[in-house]
């Protein structure tokens, strides 16, 4: 059982790289940013303001980073870090919540820009075309619950597949835990997103084991983590007990990548993270 401790939070602060303190982007530009920057923007969605010029709203916005989000990493993991955190914040979480419960989506904070946000979430495969949460979306949705429980002081292990996934991402992303290899998290996240591309819930079992076509995972790995095929297969070989490839009957097809997450123990502590 691995564990994570929210008290280590201050370590992150030292580790995380800086981002520009303020800038203005148009919604169009956000759509076309490389994923790292895109994620930074996403991470601060909860605090952005619409610009008012001459008493009219513009399709652009200004953001002021909160202490956590001013220190978002610029590594290939950055976007994952940010998007997980963003999901624990009010606006994005309420958005995910409405998707999950099929309620009307919350609008007011964002005004008319919220279509851009939806587009944006779709580009990360957090929601699908029907505005329903994908498996990745479900994992992000659980992230807030995990943090809340941890802050109450409970110690617990994730029960459902999505809680386990969320605990896994947060454990790594929150405290940069060495026990849990970054490479493993990358492959896990790739597999998670690969099955979210088709919003395939049949690809995740009740304990969080994901089985999805190898080529799909590889594609996501290359696109989101800027990794190469070599690196991908090297990483797979590094965790023979957690990752293996299930052969396909059809000759010539790559088969399915099966990855099972470790059970992560979340050690809570009654500290206000902010």
């Amino acid at each position, binding site marked *: 059982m691995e564990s994570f401790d929210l008290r280590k939070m201050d370590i992150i602060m030292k580790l995380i790289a800086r981002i520009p303190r303020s800038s203005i982007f148009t919604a169009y530009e956000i759509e076309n940013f490389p994923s790292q920057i895109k994620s930074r923007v996403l991470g601060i969605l909860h605090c952005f303001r619409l610009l008012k010029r001459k008493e009219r709203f513009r399709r652009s916005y200004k953001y002021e980073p909160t202490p956590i989000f001013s220190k978002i990493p610029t590594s290939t993991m950055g976007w994952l870090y940010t998007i997980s955190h963003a999901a624990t914040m009010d606006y994005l979480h309420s958005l995910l919540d409405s998707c999950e419960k099929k309620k009307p989506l919350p609008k007011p904070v964002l005004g008319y820009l919220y279509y851009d946000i939806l587009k944006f979430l779709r580009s990360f495969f957090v929601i699908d075309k029907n505005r329903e949460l994908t498996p990745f979306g479900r994992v992000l949705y659980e992230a807030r619950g995990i943090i809340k429980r941890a802050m109450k002081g409970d110690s617990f292990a994730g029960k459902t597949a999505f809680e386990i996934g969320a605990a896994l991402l947060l454990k790594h992303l929150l405290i940069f835990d060495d026990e849990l290899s970054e490479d493993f998290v990358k492959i896990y996240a790739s597999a998670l997103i690969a099955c979210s591309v*088709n919003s*395939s*819930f*049949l*690809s*995740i*079992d*009740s*304990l969080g*084991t994901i*089985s*999805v*076509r190898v080529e799909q995972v590889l594609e996501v790995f290359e696109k989101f983590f800027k990794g190469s095929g070599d690196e991908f297969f090297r990483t797979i070989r590094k965790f023979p*007990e957690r990752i*293996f490839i*299930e*052969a*396909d*009957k*059809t000759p010539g097809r790559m088969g*399915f990548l*099966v990855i*099972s997450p470790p059970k992560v123990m979340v050690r809570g502590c009654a500290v206000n993270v902010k």
Partner: protein
Amino acid sequence: MSSSILSKEEFEELWDILASGDSPMNLRYIKYLFSGRSDAVQIISNVLDTFSQKNIPLEVLIIQGERGVGKTFTAFYLMSYIKERAFYQILPVYISFDRISSSLDFVSKLFYDIAFGLIQYIEEESYREQLRSIMERFGVDITYAKINPHEADAPIGLLSELCKIADDHGVKLCIILDELDLLADATSAQKIYACFERLLGFQNNTRIPKLYVFCATSRALEEIENLRGSGFISRIWSALKNAKRIYLSQLNDTEKKEITEKILEIYKKCYGIDVNIAFPLLIKIIEKSLKERYLPREVITETIEVIKEYNSIKDLLERIRMQTSSISVGRDIDSILKNKLLPQISRLFPDIKFQRLANIMFPSVLFPDKTRNIDGEFVFPDDFRLGIEIKYSETKAALDNIAIDQLMSYLSARQKENIKAEAIFILLGKYDRNPFTTDQLDLLRNYGFYEKIHVFVSPIGGIFDQNLRQLILSARIAEPTQLSDILLLVLRALDILPFLRKLREEHKVGRGEGEEERVQLIQPIRNIKLRDFLKKAKGKIKGLGQKTIEKLEKAGVEYVEEFINTDANQIFQKLKEMGYRSIPKPYKIREWQKAIQELIYTQARLL
């Protein structure tokens, strides 16, 4: 769990079934062999608890995993779990798509299982009467085949009447759909689609709570996902999406150990032999044999193989144990191993031969004026050689330079002859784990033999050592037929077997010449009937017994040649069309074909 014991006959039947690669269909066996899988067990019991207590009209459980990982076995466990708990009031219906020939057959199976299962829950005479009349209308006393295709829709009506009775009694249904893998295959997929059509009708016309259990590989699930927009799958899609799923992964060491222990326990109960006391080395041997086996079926068959080998020589071992004290062992072991046991290698691997080299001298590498010899060598089909030197020591020892010189001289002599060769030390008794000193290692590196010399040491522990001696010495009084079993166990104990398998794989004969030679040799045997051939052939082929041969003959596969040259799938289809209930799967047939070809090859060579 009940402690009733399997009878010896039942145990042997179980052995044969497992060794033939099929899953045992008898629920009684399941509890003896199902172990580990704690996550799966937990999820199964959770799902069944909630399903039986709450009023859930439709639920799905998916058991997923690669081929041979134990999905069917787990499904059987689920069935026996339900049957042991009558208070669940759940009727399990197991349907395996490889045993269903048509959608009509499917409906019949569904009907029969529900009807007969229901009888145990119904006591009132009026309902029984009703049930009887429904069964008569369905044609229970007539055979399946008599339901005509144009009556095909009628069974659904009867089924829904049946389910209404079940529903009135608070009985719920658990429908297990196995071998969904066939969805990936275009021809059999059609059949499954047709069955799904029926299931859709069944689902729409009945209100009885149902738990569907899908046993599928990832590939099959992908196919199911593609069907989400249509028919039965679309009807149950939301339940399917939120289904509890369990991915069965490969076994870990503890789970393997549990299974082994269970089998040994059964063996103890049936034969009265506790291996732990009688021959502890066997446990070590099993452990070593299972090192690279991860699928339960492999683990079980491998364990049983080893136990069978042991079983055939257990009396010898007992007799030898009585005598051992009076024998001076050292030289004996050495000579028995090289003179009696190692030559048996061609029985285990027909293409490997053992050559004694004790009288052939090689010029020494380290001491130029001397000559050295070694005990023998294995010759592989492509003329690759594996030199063997056996050493025995009663006290803790390391290898001396002369011993190393032996193998080095052998290797360098072979090198000069342009023959590829490697060499092994078989160290018996109390040798060191690392018998080389650093100087010796440097020496080997300098001469370029470091990679080519391998060391195999007997397992640590006084009792194991004693057992191994017992095993080797038993060859002195063994019948010729038992020698190969002894050798196999010795090779397993020393961990040489996987090494040999690997080498054999690397040093197969290239297809070109070897194949032609083989074809010529086979010719005279080809026109013999399969039945006669197997009678004459010395080796037996597992699973290919009298009954199977009868079936094959009826399906028109009578001669050896026909059997070898017909595609396994075709034979499978033929057998299926004949309407047999238990049909060997194509991969099994393919294995038999290979085995027969090998038999032909070896027999022909003996002639």
